[in-house]
């Protein structure tokens, strides 16, 4: 039986892992490679990396180097995939088919696209025809505007797109999964936006990954029980709580949620 997934999301900014809140406040949390060793040990179901850098400069802040090291995202993907034998999804800054190809070559399994998908919906079709739809995850960031959830391009720019309508378009165009992020709930630690998650999930035939708002393990349980999403994702909670991932899985298993047992 297919298990539901619990996914840590790591936000990369200029080569460092950061904490995110409302998509704008970012606090440095450290080196992506030392973080990944922990996730590998926790035997997580899958890892999602989202690069939110605004400049094309990466500083891994390696303590063992006296000189300032510059490395790019592709190097980070390569190094992460050397120690991680789990699915890796990378997003952020993808504008061309070559961007996708290069990330896959370095060890990424799936790619999330956001801005380019909104600007050029046919890019979803083009890329899924070449790389397979299972590889193309359309990331949908949304925020409530006058009570109704509207899509924000790249998490920043408002659009008039309704979140359910846009998710359906993305599916029709060939997306393999939808990575649904609530900007309002991001970093608030007050639970998931159950209503929107359910609406989007029920209107689609592709898997949905719900993200944004987990503050306690019971938020995972609530999202798993009240919606049928294929995967639940979170960022901050996994950084700040001791053994957060295995404990979260324990909490889900205890409630009878069908997930993969930790090793």
């Amino acid at each position, binding site marked *: 039986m297919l298990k539901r997934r619990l996914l840590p999301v790591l936000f990369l900014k200029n080569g460092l892992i950061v904490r995110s809140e409302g998509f704008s406040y970012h606090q440095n949390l450290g080196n992506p490679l030392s973080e990944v060793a922990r996730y590998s040990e926790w035997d997580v179901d899958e890892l999602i990396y989202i690069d939110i850098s605004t400049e094309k400069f990466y500083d891994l802040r390696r303590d063992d180097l006296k000189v300032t090291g510059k490395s790019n995202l592709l190097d980070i993907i390569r190094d992460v995939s050397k120690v991680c034998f789990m699915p890796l999804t990378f997003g952020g800054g993808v504008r061309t088919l070559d961007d996708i190809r290069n990330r896959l070559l370095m*060890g990424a*399994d799936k790619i999330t696209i956001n801005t380019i998908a909104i600007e050029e919906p046919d890019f979803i079709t083009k890329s899924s025809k070449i790389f397979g739809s299972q590889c193309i995850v359309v990331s949908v960031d949304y925020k409530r505007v006058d009570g109704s959830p509207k899509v924000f391009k790249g998490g920043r720019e408002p659009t008039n797109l309704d979140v359910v309508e846009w998710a359906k378009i993305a599916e029709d165009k060939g997306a393999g999964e939808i990575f649904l992020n609530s900007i309002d709930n991001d970093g608030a630690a007050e639970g998931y936006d159950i209503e929107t998650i359910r609406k989007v999930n029920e209107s689609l035939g592709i898997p949905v990954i719900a993200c944004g708002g987990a503050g306690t393990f019971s938020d995972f349980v609530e999202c798993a029980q009240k919606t049928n999403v294929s995967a639940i994702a979170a960022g901050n909670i996994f950084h700040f709580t001791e053994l957060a991932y295995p404990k979260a899985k324990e909490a889900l298993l205890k409630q009878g949620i069908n997930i993969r047992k930790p090793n």
Partner: protein
Amino acid sequence: MIGVIEYGMGNIQSVVNALEFLSVKCTVIHEASEIEKAEKIILPGVGAFGEGIEKLRQKSYVEALQKAVIEKKKPFLGICLGMQLICKESFEFGHFLGLNWIDACVKRLQVPKHYRIPHVGWNNVRIKKKNRLLAQENNTGDSDVYFVHSYYVDALDADFTIATCEYGCEFPAAIEQDNIFAVQFHPEKSQRAGLAILSNFARV
């Protein structure tokens, strides 16, 4: 030495990483002429069938693979798209002919309405018969492996189907036919359970 075929279709590096982690000697093959030097061959691949077979043809891999796997009987492991490409034909985004090493065609998963496509995530496989690829000790029907696909090899009752998986319908998860092995899931992405499979292939 295991040769991992690079043909512009997806995540080659993670297969190499997994083999290196297991201390198995491997090399990435970029040209058809390099296939000869490999003792075993892995054909990974993420993506669409049509694009995949086209890339194999463009780079003249088809003949070289045929020679190595069919004539010289070198052990071969197809992963995901690599499993599908060795079939007769596929119906993904059209109709395409494959390498035709196993008698099966590739079809879109036929699942009840509430099942989502692609089939993404961790699912357990059921071992159907004694084989050299999957762990035998405890007949690990319970170990989860990572799948991500929308199409499957339609050969449930074939002799070469050694393990199956269930997602709305039952489909072959692994096959073995003489020196030809293939898995629909991603052993290189399946943590410990997957590494064990790659290690078994290295020892064939």
